[in-house]
């Protein structure tokens, strides 16, 4: 069932925004839920998060960080007017809607995309929401939207140094996130913390939050295939029990997550993902000759 791309923009370096006609999702999606996108005939099924939607007009927006083959192919090959082959959803459970009081919602790099609908809804529900975006400066997105949606939006940006690879970026991200979160928690009172982002950085932030004993909700990003509870690829250990993140999550109590297991599982396909990317780059170069 193809879904038409109504609009597309590069919001920042490697951050691509799509507005897509997907009325079945637009009608039902709630903050905290996600969709599975299969963009190409020989493509993967990847989870992405509807950022905004219009139930009447039947569209949703998605923002992808160009990370590997699928997100790169989407950026290169899809134009407004083209169709995405499949968008299944909404999937996963909505984020709990409660009056927590003062909330700190942290998005690291593209994790901020998923923070947006939740933070906005929590604010509307009567919470006092501070959002924190920790990210390389060239990848900062959604600033204006956040400023309108929540009480206070903080950007903790950092510059990319020449010669940095993924490891250096991740290292700096963790350093910045940990320092900023510690600073905020030492100087202010919060009743609830939310994090979305790379699992390693989520774990590091959790270790700080834990010292302050504040409840924390974490949206997890294990590898998914069907996202309907059928395959078990997304399994995570929560409080000693095996859960399927696609139907039991994606949000969980951060205190119960087995972080090291999650980090191992997410990294499992890295060598093959690189292979897929190289294969794609070669094909691209071949095509240009």
């Amino acid at each position: 069932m193809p879904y038409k791309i109504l609009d597309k923009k590069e919001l920042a370096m490697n951050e691509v925004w799509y507005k897509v006609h997907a009325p079945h999702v637009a009608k039902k999606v709630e903050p905290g839920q996600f969709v599975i996108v299969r963009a190409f005939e020989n493509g993967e099924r990847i989870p992405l998060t509807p950022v905004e939607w219009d139930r009447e007009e039947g569209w949703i927006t998605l923002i992808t960080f160009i990370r590997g083959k699928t997100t790169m192919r989407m950026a290169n090959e899809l134009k407004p007017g083209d169709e995405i082959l499949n968008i299944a959803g909404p999937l996963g459970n909505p984020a709990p809607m409660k009056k927590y009081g003062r909330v700190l919602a942290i998005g690291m790099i593209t994790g901020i995309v998923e923070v947006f609908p939740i933070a906005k809804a929590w604010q509307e529900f009567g919470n006092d929401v501070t959002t924190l975006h920790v990210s390389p400066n060239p990848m900062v997105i959604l600033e204006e939207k956040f400023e309108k949606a929540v009480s206070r939006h903080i950007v903790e940006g950092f510059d990319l140094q020449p010669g940095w690879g993924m490891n250096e970026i991740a290292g700096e991200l963790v350093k910045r996130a940990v320092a900023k979160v510690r600073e905020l928690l030492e100087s202010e009172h919060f009743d609830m913390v939310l994090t979305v982002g790379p699992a390693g950085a989520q774990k590091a932030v959790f270790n700080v939050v834990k010292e302050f004993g504040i409840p924390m909700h974490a949206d997890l990003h294990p590898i998914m295939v069907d996202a309907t509870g059928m395959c078990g690829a997304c399994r995570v250990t929560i409080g000693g029990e095996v859960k399927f993140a696609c139907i039991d999550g994606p949000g969980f109590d951060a205190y119960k997550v087995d972080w090291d297991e999650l980090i191992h599982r997410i990294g499992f396909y890295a060598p093959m993902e690189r292979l897929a990317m190289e294969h794609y780059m070669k094909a691209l170069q071949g095509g240009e000759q």
Partner: protein
Amino acid sequence: MAVKRKLIKERVPTPERPAEERVKDFGEVNLGYTFELAVKEAERCLQCPANYAPCIKGCPVHINIPGFIGKLVEYRDDPDRAVKEALNVIWACNSLPATTGRVCPQEDQCEMNCVMGKVGDKINIGKLERFVADYARERGIDEELLFEIVPKIEKKGQKVAIIGAGPAGLTAAGELAKLGYDVTIYEALHEAGGVLMYGIPEFRLPKSIVESEIDKLRKLGVRILTDHIVGKTVTIEELLEEYDAVFIGSGAGTPRLINAPGVNLNGIYTANEFLTRVNLMKAYLFPEYDTPVYVGKKVIVIGAGNTAMDAARSARRFGAEVTIAYRRGPEDVSARIEEVEHAKEEGIKFEFFINPVEFIGDENGKVKAVKFEKMKALEERDSRGKRKIVGTGEYVTIEADTVIIAIGKHPNRLIVNTPGLKVERGRIVVDENLMTSIPGVFAGGDAIRGEATVILAMGDGRKAAKAIHEYLTKKRENGNA
């Protein structure tokens, strides 16, 4: 029967690709009959009278087996006619013969009590059924037959929603469309077919066959909405506002895991994940196809049903050394005999009476071995007639870099959480007409049975279609009154 026939004791064999060749690719293993060979096999059938024929009794949907086999012999001089007549007989009870001919456990069903078995080999009913369906598809005979049906359909003006496009849902949809209902299938995945598409591998059931069956449904006017997850995209309650009846054929897709330490190590797959990556996402064509799968050098598959055989044989095709580990003995293997034989030919090892107790990982969280407890069987039998097994307290550790767990599945969870839907041990509860606790909502296939078979799911689809027809006929009459 006037003509006295000579008994031919031996089965006419179907050509198979040699094991050394086929383990290198995902092409089909069994090549099936030609018309000439099919007629030769058909001639062996004794044409037992339909009211007595044990083969018909053994088939869960009671196909008139001597009836369709007889047509092949009767019209042997006109192959197209012979196949069309035979297909017409089969279609009266079974709309997916290319599939069932390949995947039914014939040895426990139609072929089990075939009378030819008393004097020689039983009739190869499955392969004949498959032949009729394949020949018809290749020559467009099935479409011809379909186009004769379509204009005769009288529109009823009532709408039915089907949840899940597996064999149960597809069959219900086809039958209801033929009865004149306006049918829409809601399917969670991006392709219709259920287990036929994501579970059973290409080398056993080519996906082009399933696609062709689904194409025929579309020609009958059935609408298929993929990417729609009932319980998320739309609820059963909402479907009831739009449709006059609902059929649930959501299957038993939730994999059962082993409750042992280390089960979440990398390299440990459920059979569903492994097979979905390989079949639905075509990981065997990686990196042409984007979805990866990791198959190491040594693979252990835990379990001994059809799913285990499919996983083991798929892994073998990636060049791995594969061992099937089963906690019971050879007599309890539940896979089709043909699959077990094919697995052995392909060099898959079997280890019996061992039960996994721990998965051992390396420092990167990747599995490197499995620790098993040795089991032994008692004389005492359990409720299913299997010998009880107990641990011996002795252990054995086997190295493996990939482990595939194939120990069974539960019904899909998203549906069973529907308010008002009565469920017992995960299975949807139905009455004798397959109606659930919600009026107008029917269910069948693995969703009510737990893991069963394709033909039982289809039988349920057909039975439910009939019951829905009766239910909607009453509704129409009451509406008109």
